[in-house]
């Protein structure tokens, strides 16, 4: 009898303690989750802002400085207006087609108009931050990618036609590719059981190959600028381009390290790889120039930096500093040869070298990712036993190189075919090339009724 009471006592005490414990755990777990989310969200909001900074003013300045004085506003406006246009398209259907589940090649419309995209994390993509943060971060990628293309048809494309082109290009080329590589169950998504498991941490295929290859197609389709190449069309203000390049470099930390989608050690690792590759590529390009031309140039230095950043993008979350250095050097030299030799050789007018840097650099980086990726850096792929799987060739997974090549081929094909089709549509509907008188006069005055720099007699 007493014993009974005793038993009860024990039971009650025990249960009491359990409850206390449980409760305590409960609260603290929620609180810890919130704290974790705050840290990750802080970094991701910052990264999102940094990636927007890459387009405006970064890319706008980089490109704006490279064109002739009469086209600087028209060129900058192409980047700037995409910040607006793509944002609206993204909210309406872009995000959904890219990241809604659906087919392996394209998403569905479940997230159209951002329905269901709120403060709750989407565990398929980023379990610790609001889905809206993820959606905004990805939006900034969708803004800069088409903007990169504009470097190829600079100084000669109709503004109206450019808007139509970009709308179609985003829909037909970018969204499917983004879905295949990063979307849930995407055809090329190594982390979501894709048929062809490719590794593309921050957009070697989705961003750089797609834009670079489309740029080449545009350059070929629109043809050369009046007077090219006989007339020397040199940058009207390299200082602007230097500012732009620096902002691209800094913004790229958001681009690559942000692609870890958390303020984690992986983010830091991507940060390191990004910076090291940019540095190595800068030196690579400068040395190549110095040897071949006897002089290192400012334009070479900033172009090299961008080339390195492009090439490391797909690899940034998978490689250690050493390989990042090698990728950087390779990118610097290869891209230098692309813009100084290959372009001259074939004579196409890739006006601001969007293909020479992004197309070539992106392809190089995508393939080298298959070589240098290692699970020492990224253990995201696990076997049933939870053991991290080997990633690249140096991890003992030679097949990855093949998969990377498949990813590259699919990207090239989609970009090339898609772009040619879109150009034909735009040409039929609006015409793609400005009238020669306007080209002579310059886009700023002809299309926008403005001059960048006012003529104003100086006075004392």
């Amino acid at each position: 009898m007493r014993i009974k009471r005793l038993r009860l006592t024990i039971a009650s005490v025990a249960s009491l303690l359990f409850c206390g414990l449980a409760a305590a755990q409960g609260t603290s777990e929620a609180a810890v989750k919130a704290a974790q989310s705050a840290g990750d969200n802080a970094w991701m909001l910052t990264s999102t802002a940094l990636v927007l900074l890459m387009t405006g003013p970064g890319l706008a300045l980089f490109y704006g400085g490279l064109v002739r004085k009469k086209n600087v506003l028209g060129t900058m406006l192409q980047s700037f207006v995409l910040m607006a246009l793509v944002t609206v398209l993204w909210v309406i259907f872009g995000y959904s087609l890219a990241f809604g589940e659906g087919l392996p090649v394209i998403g569905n419309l479940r997230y159209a108009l951002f329905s269901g995209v709120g403060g709750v994390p989407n565990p398929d993509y980023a379990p610790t931050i609001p889905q809206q943060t993820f959606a905004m971060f990805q939006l900034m990628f969708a803004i800069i990618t088409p903007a990169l293309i504009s470097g190829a048809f600079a100084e000669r494309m109709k503004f109206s036609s450019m808007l139509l082109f970009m709308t179609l290009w985003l829909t037909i080329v970018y969204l499917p590719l983004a879905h295949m590589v990063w979307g849930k169950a995407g055809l090329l998504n190594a982390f979501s059981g894709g048929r062809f498991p490719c590794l593309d941490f921050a957009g070697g295929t989705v961003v750089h190959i797609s834009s670079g290859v489309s740029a080449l197609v545009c350059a070929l389709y629109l043809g050369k600028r009046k007077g090219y190449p006989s007339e020397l069309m040199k940058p009207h203000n390299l200082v602007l381009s230097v500012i732009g390049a620096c902002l691209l470099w800094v913004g790229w930390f958001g681009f690559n390290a942000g692609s870890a989608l958390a303020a984690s050690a992986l983010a830091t690792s991507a940060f390191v790889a990004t910076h090291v590759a940019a540095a190595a590529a800068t030196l690579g390009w400068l040395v190549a120039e110095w040897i071949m031309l006897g002089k290192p140039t400012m334009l070479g230095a900033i172009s090299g930096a961008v080339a390195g950043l492009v090439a490391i993008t797909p690899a940034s979350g998978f490689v250690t500093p050493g390989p990042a250095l090698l990728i950087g050097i390779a990118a610097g030299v290869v891209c230098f040869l692309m813009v100084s030799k290959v372009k001259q050789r074939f004579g196409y007018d890739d006006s601001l070298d969007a293909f020479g840097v992004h197309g070539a650099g992106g392809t190089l980086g995508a393939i080298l990712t298959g070589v240098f990726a290692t699970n020492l850096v990224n253990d995201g792929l696990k076997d049933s036993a939870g053991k991290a799987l080997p990633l690249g060739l140096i991890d003992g997974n030679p097949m990855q190189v093949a998969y990377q090549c498949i990813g590259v081929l699919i990207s090239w094909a989609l970009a090339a075919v898609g772009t040619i089709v879109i150009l034909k549509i735009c040409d039929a509907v609006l015409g793609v090339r400005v009238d020669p008188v306007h080209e002579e006069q310059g886009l700023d005055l002809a299309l926008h009724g403005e001059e960048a720099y006012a003529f104003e007699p100086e006075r004392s």
Partner: protein
Amino acid sequence: MIKKIEAIIQPFKLDEVKEALRAIGVDGMTILEVRGHGRQRGHTEIYRGQEYQVDLLPKIKLEIVAPHNRVEQIATALIHAARTGSIGDGKIFVSDIAEAIRIRNEDRGEDAL
């Protein structure tokens, strides 16, 4: 006979001068941004705690080619529009033009102006 009138004026007088010339039916002219050096003391600039006298002042140079019989009228209009009365107002120089040709249609002489 055709003359060339070169006038060096204060930049901020440009609009008034253009007006005055239009008023007397002179439309054709070429304008140059130049730097002038003369009696006028330049403004002082400050750099790193030092004051510097700038001795090359921004000026505007107008070149007007016109029939000789219009020169006095043009000069007068110029002078009145450009004058402030203080040092630095500038100068007018007149010289001869042997031939004038309009590129568009090869008009020559006074027809070309």
